[in-house]
């Protein structure tokens, strides 16, 4: 009896698959590229993290030795991990708050000013490779804009090694990353504010909402929950991806790994030292870190948005 039931159920699933062939066919082309270039790398990295692999020979099973090395023996890993955490703790939330806050302020501008300000704030992201300009602003020699200006004002007597000094370089990169922090999440907020139902605010005003802060707290934020979630995901994704900027500004690897993060360390391990198995161990660690963080943040956001 039970058997025939599950059989029936199986059959009906198969029938439903068959009757929806067109859906699968339409997903297939995208799916193939997605699986090959996004899914297999992530799953493959988890597998390779248990192997010793140098790209020239086939991977050799190494058990947990890579994890042992990472967590117990590798000092550089801990430097890089703490850099990643410091970097993420500063630029992640700040970038998120910037995106929300500026989108909120811009929303109070009129039809003409709003798109202009949106463009101004989004310009760094659009300009992409333009972050190279920061190498000129923060150049180590006296021709660098900042050095030259400070020297001229007599504030410093010799050029500051902004991009080589271990104690300074991290701050410089944080500033540059904040400059680039208004990305896709910012656009989502801009759009979210604009598409809000106006009658809600009028109803709120009747119910005693007195100023824009109260409006934000009691009407806007609860309505923005989906955008807040989406932007959080984009923010986590962007925060841990910062690698090109560091390599462009401070070199690869940076002086004593002072500004290296997990992404650049992975690259160093794989392209310079050909320790791909170990690089995949670091990658797996990063994936797990991101997923845990994402789960925490979405849980908090969901709870907050349903409370109101």
């Amino acid at each position, binding site marked *: 009896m039970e058997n025939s039931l599950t059989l029936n159920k199986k059959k009906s699933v198969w029938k439903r698959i068959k009757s929806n062939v067109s859906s699968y066919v339409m997903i297939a082309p995208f799916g193939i590229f997605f699986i090959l270039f996004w899914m297999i790398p992530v799953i493959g990295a988890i597998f390779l993290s248990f192997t010793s692999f140098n790209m020239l020979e086939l991977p050799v099973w190494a058990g947990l030795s890579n994890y042992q090395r990472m967590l117990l023996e590798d000092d550089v890993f801990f430097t890089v991990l703490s850099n990643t955490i410091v970097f993420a703790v500063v630029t992640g939330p700040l970038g998120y708050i910037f995106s929300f806050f500026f989108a909120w302020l811009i929303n109070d501008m*009129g039809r003409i000013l709003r798109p202009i300000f949106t463009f101004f704030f989004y310009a760094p992201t659009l300009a992409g*490779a333009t972050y190279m300009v920061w190498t000129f602003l923060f150049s180590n020699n006296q021709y660098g804009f900042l050095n030259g200006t400070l020297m001229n004002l007599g504030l410093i007597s010799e050029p500051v090694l902004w991009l080589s000094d271990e104690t300074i370089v991290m701050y410089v990169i944080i500033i540059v990353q904040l400059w680039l922090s208004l990305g896709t999440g910012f656009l989502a907020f801009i759009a979210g504010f604009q598409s809000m139902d106006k009658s809600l605010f009028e109803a709120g005003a009747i119910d005693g909402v007195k100023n824009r802060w109260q409006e934000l707290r009691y009407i806007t934020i609860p309505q923005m929950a989906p955008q807040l979630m989406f932007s959080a995901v984009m923010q986590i994704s962007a925060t841990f991806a910062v690698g090109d900027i560091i390599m462009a500004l401070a070199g690869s690897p940076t002086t004593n790994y002072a500004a290296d993060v997990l992404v650049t360390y992975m690259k160093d391990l794989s392209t310079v030292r050909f320790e791909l198995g170990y690089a995949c161990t670091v990658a797996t660690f990063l994936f797990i870190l991101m997923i845990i963080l994402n789960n925490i943040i*979405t849980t908090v956001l969901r709870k907050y948005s349903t409370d109101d």
Partner: protein
Amino acid sequence: MKLPRIRIFKESVNRSTAGNVAIFIILLLFAAFFLLPVIYVIMSAFKPLDEILIFPPRFFVRHPTTTNFTQLGIYVNDFWVPLSRYIFNSVFMTVLGVGGGLVFGSMAAYPLSKHKFPGKAVFNQIIVLSLLFSAAVTEVPRYIVMSVMGLIDTQWSIILPACGATLGLYLMRNFIGQINNSMIEAARIDGCSEFGIYNKIIMPNVKPAWLTVLVLTFNTTWNNQGTTFIYTENLKGLANIITQLNSGGTARLGLAAAATLIMMLPPMIFFLFSQNMIVETMSTSGLKE
């Protein structure tokens, strides 16, 4: 004749003019932080060499000149790869990568949004989860996949992953979600195939989403230096030139700025002309679970 009233600020309840002015000033101050480096690039691109090497450095250009641009052409011709080749490469990779992402992405977005089939929920969850994993984070394992497939040092190493990037798919899927079901039902009753519906109803209605995804992905592909996967100089894109000029030090600042200016214009112009449609699309970008 009655002139239309220009509203400087949005008219809404609970807004004081003083507050609006304060916000305007705050925005101006921060806009300076976000814009000044971009303006510095524009200024430097038009500076003659003596103004670049001057001490103390000046922000503004005194005697604007176009020598940097002509010099850039000459300098780049000294590479054994002509500038036109770099431009062709960038355009080629961007058009195929962005185009592929749009076509394949929108085709997959329709069933993921409107159809009911076994596995749909799992697919959608994977897509949301994959938004977390940026290209940079997955680069090392992707390198291994590429080399197994023999794609290293080909332009396909840039183009093919762009055809399977999920941000575009996600945005288009959400946007398609708000298309009226009755239109689709009517077409189905008229005997239209699913591909026909995609072609005749979905495509014309998702134009704003197309454009948004275009702007977002154009930007990343256009600025992709591709140096991780491509070694052969005459296969690399334009972004690569900037890195090279930049390593030339201060004397090359003018040239690097000119090249940077050329690079950043296309995405900016794109964005300026499509902002309304981008806002329309992004208003459906929210993550609902």
